[in-house]
């Protein structure tokens, strides 16, 4: 109970006076809830032909229809489930790998550190998207599950580096030395002593990777490398592009999934900025600074008078 309260207190503290965090979380929450409650928000089956092709938005089909006569609004909601699942699955896989590699490299040091970091640096220097394109091309039209997996397995290097440097910073603190002297096992030190100190960084990494994964998945599918029969925001863009929605003036066909992607991306980015500012208060801007300036000016004025 006590821990629960302290967690709630921590979360409340995070959001206090943190406009970017509040706005970002609200945007993401609204979209997630909308996608989860898709059946309540639309009566149409996203896979069924329910209208004529490229019908403009109307009372019946509020976001119009695709070339194949499917309801765009319903597709965006149901497709969002797939896109969000992929993003969060990829972010989870990435966070676990990055934590494992970064913390072991930082804590064990020596040969282990050198080997792990050599692998990480080589992975880091490769441009990711071309790598993903080649992988997807050889694997054939990849479904959402495979996309989540390859995104998760290829995007950890940056996170691993961050985790490693943070672990290095923590490793020489007294409480770790104390734990070592007390004879705690290495695993206990890693999991119980070090990991809790990495939580805010890990949260930032999770959000950052989810943001990246939303874009990368949409991109791969837009380029036609995904499985076009699965409905997601990326495949909606793909179908809009391949049915020349632009040239026939069916703007809603690509604008709707595009807006969803842009909004969720913006929301996640805002959360990410606010996490950065909380873990590094130096970067803060806004009302606190104004207050500081005003107080500082008053102090200076008083000094001058004196």
């Amino acid at each position, binding site marked *: 109970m006590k821990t629960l309260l302290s967690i709630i207190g921590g979360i409340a503290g995070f959001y206090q006076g943190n406009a970017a965090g509040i706005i970002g979380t609200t945007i993401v929450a609204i979209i997630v809830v909308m996608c989860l409650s898709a059946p309540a928000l639309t009566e149409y089956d996203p896979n069924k032909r329910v209208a004529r092709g490229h019908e403009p938005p109307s009372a019946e089909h509020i976001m119009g229809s695709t070339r194949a006569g499917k309801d765009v609004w319903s597709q965006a909601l149901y497709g969002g489930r797939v896109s969000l699942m992929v993003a969060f699955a990829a972010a989870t896989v990435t966070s676990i790998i990055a934590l494992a590699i970064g913390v072991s490299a930082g804590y064990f040091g020596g040969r282990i550190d050198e080997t792990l970091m050599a692998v990480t640096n080589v992975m880091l220097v490769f441009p990711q998207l*071309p790598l993903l394109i080649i992988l997807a091309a*050889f694997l054939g039209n990849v479904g959402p599950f495979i996309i989540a997996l390859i995104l998760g397995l290829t995007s950890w290097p940056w996170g691993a580096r961050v985790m490693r440097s943070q672990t290095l910073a923590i490793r020489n603190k007294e409480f770790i030395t104390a734990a070592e002297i007390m004879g705690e096992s290495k695993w206990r030190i890693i999991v119980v002593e070090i990991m809790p100190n990495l939580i805010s960084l890990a949260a930032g990494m999770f959000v950052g990777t989810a943001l990246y994964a939303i*874009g990368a998945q949409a*991109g791969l599918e837009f380029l036609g490398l995904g499985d076009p029969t699965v409905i997601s925001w990326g495949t909606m863009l793909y179908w809009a592009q391949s049915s020349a929605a*632009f040239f026939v003036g069916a703007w809603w066909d690509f604008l709707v999934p595009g807006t969803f992607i*842009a909004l969720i991306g913006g929301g996640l980015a*805002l959360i990410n900025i606010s996490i950065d500012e909380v873990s590094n208060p130096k970067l803060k801007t806004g009302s606190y*600074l104004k207050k500081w300036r005003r107080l500082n000016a008053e102090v200076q004025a008083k000094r001058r008078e004196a």
Partner: protein
Amino acid sequence: MAFILRRLVFYSVAIFVAITFNFIMPRLMPGDPVDAMFAAAGGKLPPETLAAYQEMLGFVDAPLWQQYLQYLKSVVTFDLGPSIMLFPTPVTQVLSNTLPWTVFLAGTATILAIFIGCFIGLYASYNRGGFVDKYVPVFWQFVASMPQAVTALLIFFVFALTLKWFPLGFGFNPDMEPAVTPGFIGTILYHAVLPLVTLVLSMIATWVFTMRNSMVNVLGEDYIAMAKAKGLSARRIMTHYAARNAILPVVTAVSMALGFAVAGQVFIETVYNYPGVGQLIIKAVAARDYPLMQACFLLIVICVLIANFIADILYVWLDPRLRK
């Protein structure tokens, strides 16, 4: 010098890994890519070529290490065989036709984004807590968080399709004869505007944040307090004392950003139908042209590594501590 040498070794290893990746991928895949390729090519190819591709993609009986050496040799001698999609043009020639476009686009966009972004970041840190500091970086972050495919589609729709201010595609006006004339350079620039703007928009945020955060850290240093105590103007402190030191993390960030620029390139070239490597790799994938696709990948990797190396040299030049 030791630093540069170490980086050179590192990049050689990275290139080696990329080549090995190219070698392993087709051999790991289920099924026979050569068959799929030939089905896609629709019987345009003579049987000798089939045998050559089978050898290249690993469907021969020779032991693996021998195949590997063979592959290494073909990469080192730039003998990557003919492209399937554009048979019988050699892969290397297809690539050399497209590479200048991509380098032009990615290079110009990166440099523009660095200048604009660093300037905004500098200004934001100069006026800590002001309007620009509060809203402008967040705004750019919001813009950058849209996937490049979406940004490209939006800009294309508004400025090329609806307003008709800019052309619908290609690197230059196809009615004009390529030549070094003001008119032709003009059409190249005109066609590059939208792709450049899209790429720059998606990259500015990185630089705004890198520069601002780096400035914020530098401004806490003692020598800044010293400069203030000497009574130097705020502007001089910003440009001559803080910015010069804050630029270092910006140079390190170049290597990260380049991968991002290349990724953006793929989407942007596809949307704007721009004749670069990014569009080529997608076309090659669609046509199941494995040799061309792999060569594109290798070329992109090598370009990114070279750019990284240039950033390293710049870093040594800027930071005397590394020059021992």
